[in-house]
């Protein structure tokens, strides 16, 4: 139950995290692309403006006079002329790289940032400038090795005098794109909050939708035996899966109840209907047995017949008792009694049986009375069952010990033997109806028993609000332990139809 809720929540969270990550990456990537494009465009516009401005200015200067003087040796820059116009002062302040070349492609001016360029870079610039014909050209070139490529714009100056050939402006696109970075920061800050909130919400939702299942499990747990089998699950309103599940479970419960009732009724009816014929049989046999005129050779077989009738009556009575117990109707008539007296009675029988089989009977009874509210005939039946079994499965020379203790308002009866024991795999079945252990326990020639004895014992113990347990080691012996509460249970055990 809890695990389904947890699994659902974990699945939600994983799905949501994946969604957020994919969405975030896509958004970031797209945003970065567009930022770059934007920066590129801005750069191009800037270059165009700068170029245009510089050309206008140079053209204006050229109309007034020469702008270039032949000055030998501008050092390594391979120039023999120098820009002498006022434009020079203006160009000195330019942030971007600006190159002015004469008609022959010789550089007559290089703006300050470009003066630190390597010769290779200048060669590259000149190579571009020398391309013929000089028209508007855009492109990329590498000026600083290892850094982002520069965007450039090459335009002819078109001066009247012909001293100036072209101008080239170049700039690096900005590497700092603020937009995507900010987006990333926001996402990293916000995503955990969203995840936490949705996990909590998911947990709550899962719990809410699973609550009817919880309720159903509780209701089903309450249906344990024949007495509660008439109960049904509350069907949630609506036509959803849960309400259909509840309906199907209820339908199944109805079928289980029907077959359970049919079986119980059959057992009860059959046992009941068997009683009268058994009574009649017994009456006839008993009459013949007690009739002094019955020849002796018939008495033996009549006696065996009576014994069989008794066994059958016992079986029928036990079946009926258990069938009623399943209905919750076979109540007990409780009266306070000293358990020691009942144990004493059973001890005599045990001792008689033991004498016959060569089994020693030991007992350990307290000196103080052990007063327990009991249905004496039932407890007597339980004791005789356990004792008879114990003697039966203990070989000559063995021992059967019967103990009684009283501790903390709990009376504990033990019947221990040193007999053949019960295989570990069989232990859990010994209290089942009609269960028989391996053939060793029902050797031919032995009284087969009804197979209900221990089932009845279990019912008797439990109907008193007590327990019965068995421990055994094959070849070493078996201990049956019965506990009975010494206080009257709160729910009345005596049932009545009134």
């Amino acid at each position, binding site marked *: 139950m809890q695990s389904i809720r947890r699994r659902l929540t974990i699945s939600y969270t994983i799905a949501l995290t994946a969604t957020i990550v994919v969405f975030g990456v896509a958004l970031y990537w797209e945003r970065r692309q567009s930022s770059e494009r934007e920066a590129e465009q801005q750069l191009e516009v800037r270059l165009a403006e700068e170029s245009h401005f510089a050309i206008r200015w140079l053209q204006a200067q050229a109309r007034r006079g020469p702008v270039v003087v032949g000055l030998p040796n501008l050092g390594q820059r391979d120039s023999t002329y120098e820009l002498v116009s006022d434009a020079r002062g203006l160009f000195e302040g330019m942030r971007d790289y600006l190159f002015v070349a004469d008609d022959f492609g010789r550089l007559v001016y290089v703006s300050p940032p470009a003066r630190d360029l390597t010769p290779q870079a200048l060669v590259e610039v000149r190579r571009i400038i020398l391309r013929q014909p000089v028209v508007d050209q855009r492109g990329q070139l590498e000026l600083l090795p290892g850094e982002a490529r520069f965007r450039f714009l090459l335009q002819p100056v078109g001066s009247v005098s012909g001293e100036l050939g072209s101008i080239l402006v170049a700039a690096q696109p900005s590497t700092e794109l603020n937009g995507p970075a900010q987006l990333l920061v926001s996402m990293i800050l916000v995503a955990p909050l969203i995840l936490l909130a949705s996990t909590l919400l998911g947990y709550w939702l899962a719990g809410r939708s699973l609550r009817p299942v919880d309720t159903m499990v509780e209701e089903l747990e309450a249906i344990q035996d024949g007495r509660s089998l008439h109960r049904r699950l509350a069907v949630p309103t609506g036509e959803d899966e849960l309400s259909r599940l509840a309906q199907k479970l209820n339908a199944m419960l109805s079928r289980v109840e029907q077959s359970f009732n049919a079986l119980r009724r059959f057992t009860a009816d059959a046992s009941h209907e068997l009683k009268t014929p*058994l009574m009649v049989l017994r*009456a006839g046999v008993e009459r013949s047995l007690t009739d002094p005129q019955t020849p*002796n050779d018939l*008495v033996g077989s009549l*006696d065996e017949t009576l014994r069989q*009738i*008794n066994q059958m009556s016992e079986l029928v009575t036990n079946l009926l008792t258990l069938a009623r117990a399943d209905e919750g109707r076979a109540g007990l008539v409780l009266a306070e009694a000293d358990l020691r007296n009942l144990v004493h009675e059973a001890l005599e029988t045990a001792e008689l*049986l033991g004498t016959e089989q060569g089994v020693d009977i030991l007992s350990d009874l307290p000196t103080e009375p052990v007063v327990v509210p009991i249905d004496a005939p039932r407890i007597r039946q339980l004791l005789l069952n356990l004792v*008879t079994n114990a003697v039966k499965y203990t070989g000559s020379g063995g021992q059967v010990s019967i103990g009684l203790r009283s501790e903390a308002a709990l009376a504990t009866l033990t019947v221990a033997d040193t007999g053949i024991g019960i295989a570990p795999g069989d232990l859990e079945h010994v209290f089942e109806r009609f269960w028989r252990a391996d053939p060793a326990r029902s050797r031919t020639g032995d009284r087969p028993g009804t197979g209900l004895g221990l089932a009845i014992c279990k019912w008797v113990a439990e109907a008193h609000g007590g327990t019965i347990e068995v421990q055994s080691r094959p070849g070493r012996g078996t201990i049956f332990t019965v506990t009975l509460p010494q206080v009257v249970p709160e729910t009345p055990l005596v049932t*009545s139809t009134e």
Partner: protein
Amino acid sequence: MKLLVVEDDKTVGQYVKRGLEEQQYIADWVENGSEALKLASSAHYDLMILDLRLPGMTGLEVLRTARDRGLTLPILVLTAQDGVEFKVDALRAGADDYVTKPFAFEELLARIEALSRRPRALSSRALQLADLELDLDAREVRRNGTVIELTPKEYLVLEYLMRHPGRVMSRTLITEYAWDYHFDPGTNIVDVVINRLRKKVDADFAQKLVHTVRGVGYVVKG
């Protein structure tokens, strides 16, 4: 002592009637409730044995009607239903005791005896055979005036045999009486009891009273 048996099953009815007559009771047997009420109101009976399951008027209805009419005779109920509630219902409706079917006849006799608070027709409160005496009230056994200590089961077995002197009683009948007809240990536990009884009752005397009839059972006779 006059008894009224109300039982619709002919075999059971006849069996009870004949068995009671053998014990020197006077028994009338009717098969339905209305007839039972008619008889009980018009003639005197010392006790009624009433089956709970009757055609027409049920046993419970007969019980209630009888008590409503002021009939005070003890009523012993026969029931095939061993659910406690049936017994409780019957006792509430005015029954004095119940016997669950199938029952041993001795059990029925014991209940009748207890209810009528009188010794059984021909039995006194003491049984005697030769110099062996059995006091039913004190549950005491004497031979030749000397008290013999018996365990409860030994006493019951001896009592049963003494109730039927000269009659061979089978092992199953003895077991039923001393324990319960539900109890069947699967061994001849009765033999063990008889052996002990012999030691206590017969060993010191020349005249043996407890006898074995091979393959049949046991008998006490002088």
